[in-house]
């Protein structure tokens, strides 16, 4: 290596470091360090606006196990994810298979189903509130028309969480649809033709023998992304129920907000963040495990 080359090498190293520096600084200051800071805060009794802070060991976590509102939030969040994810993936796949062969109206159907993904959830929660209104909501009107009795969807402890989960499905199904449509389009036509030659003539046979097995990776991806979004449910709860009635619709992110920024209990809020992080990591870990199985089998 000549001296000239060596100089340009070290110049490139310096230039590279300088170009990366501002971005790296922001990533560390706004993402990495805050994430690391949560751990010590979760073991402290820190309250926003109060001077003294002390480490209190596992106290926050012990309190969580005794806190009925937290236990409800944890349980409800898991139930919400377990309703929203399979329903979104299943409906998304079904709709994508229907839309894929729908001819001229294909673009229309795709656009219509995608609309909730880009719309403002806080505003749509207000709209859903009106749809679900017990006396003059659209849903109860429609139910009365077909001879069923309406319900008070958001004030009934047994109904409120499934109702919010349905809104969650409504919100995320369009994303699943476009991902599955992209996945379907990437299947080579020759494979489908081969299946038809082998006797898979009905759409159902085609879906079962060729399409579904090849959609494995897309399905894993849609499942994980829907699970991450469902875990972060906040807007509908904040706008429509505030976690009630009782704690029937309390969820982790809403409780995190209430404890940290209404009760100003930063330490306790950080402990809830740790639980939230554990659930997010469990989802990621599940993805890794399934990915490995798909790629090695």
């Amino acid at each position: 290596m000549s001296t000239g080359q060596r100089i340009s090498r070290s110049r490139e190293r310096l230039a590279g470091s300088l170009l990366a520096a501002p971005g790296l600084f922001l990533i560390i200051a706004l993402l990495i360090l805050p994430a690391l800071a949560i751990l010590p805060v979760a073991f402290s009794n820190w309250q926003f606006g109060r001077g003294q802070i002390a480490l209190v060991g596992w106290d926050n976590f012990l309190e969580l196990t005794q806190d009925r509102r937290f236990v409800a939030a944890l349980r409800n969040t898991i139930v919400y994810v377990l309703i929203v994810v399979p329903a979104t993936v299943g409906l998304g796949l079904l709709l994508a298979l229907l839309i894929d062969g729908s001819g001229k109206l294909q673009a229309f159907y795709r656009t219509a189903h995608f609309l909730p993904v880009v719309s403002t959830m806080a505003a749509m929660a207000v709209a859903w509130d009106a749809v679900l209104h017990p006396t003059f909501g659209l849903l109860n009107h429609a139910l009365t028309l077909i001879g069923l009795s309406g319900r008070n969807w958001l004030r009934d402890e047994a109904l409120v969480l499934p109702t919010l989960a349905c809104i969650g499905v409504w919100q995320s199904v369009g994303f699943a649809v476009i991902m599955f449509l992209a996945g379907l389009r990437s299947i080579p036509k020759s494979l489908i033709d081969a299946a038809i030659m082998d006797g898979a003539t009905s759409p159902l046979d085609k879906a079962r023998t060729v399409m579904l097995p090849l959609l494995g990776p897309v399905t894993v991806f849609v499942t994980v992304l829907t699970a991450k979004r469902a875990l972060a449910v906040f807007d509908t709860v904040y706008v429509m129920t505030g976690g009630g009635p009782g704690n029937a619709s309390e969820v982790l992110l809403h409780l995190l907000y209430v404890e940290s920024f209404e009760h100003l209990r930063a330490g306790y809020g950080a402990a809830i963040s740790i639980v939230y992080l554990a659930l997010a990591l469990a989802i990621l870990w599940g993805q890794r495990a399934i990915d490995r199985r798909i790629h090695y089998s």
Partner: protein
Amino acid sequence: MNAGTLTRRFTRHGLLLISTLIVASPFLWMALLSCMPPERAGQSVVSLQIDLAAIKANYAAALTETPMPRFLLNGVIVCALTLTSQIIVGAPIAFALAKMHFPGRKLVVGLVVVALLLPHEILAVPLFFICYRLGVLDSYTAIMLPNLISPTAVFLLYQFFRTIPNDLIHAARIDGMGYWSIIWRVMIPLSKPVLAAIAVLSIVGRWNDLYWPAIAVSSTELMPPPLGMMVFHDQEAGTNYGPLMAAALITTAPLIVAFIIAQRKFIDSFTASSVR
């Protein structure tokens, strides 16, 4: 065409139309209620008659009872400045990671990936504290601070830059261009599809965000549209649906209009977000 395929086609479109109707129902109900006079919106039987005076009254109330135009302006300012920062800070680091050798490069790529996978919701407590210590709580800066950099944007640009041939950069170097001008005059003009995806994802995310603005600002005049609409929601307390529905419609309309105009761009952007 035999009877079998005809039935099948009929079932397919029947199911899709029902599904479309269900998906569209909150939008239609919101639009319908925003066109009705208050005394009729509260009744149990909805008349489909649209009343021009009521439309005018409802939308006028939505735009004047709270500073709705200000909310919309706040939303535009926050989206524009956030996106600008994400690109100005993101492009150089993405370029350095994709095309240059410098010490610790692999570690930095690792940090970007960790930042990408991190659920950002949990950072609220530390970020609130940072805003407090910087003395910026209740300001545009507070709303924008957590998103001045976007790991998604960095990662998308990094992936795209890696596909650009090194020869192009060498040629530009031989022509005497510095790295800074290579980024902005060679790489960025080539990255339009990626930049469009980043813009869509960033704008949709920021415009619709309720969680962080609810933490970061308390002054009404700084609120972005979703949070501002909540003020309206609390004021009306479920009695006067017309103006509230008008406000909700105004809040979500800009993105919906943009989506309908540029459907392909939006859908491709969300497909490209597969990196997460």
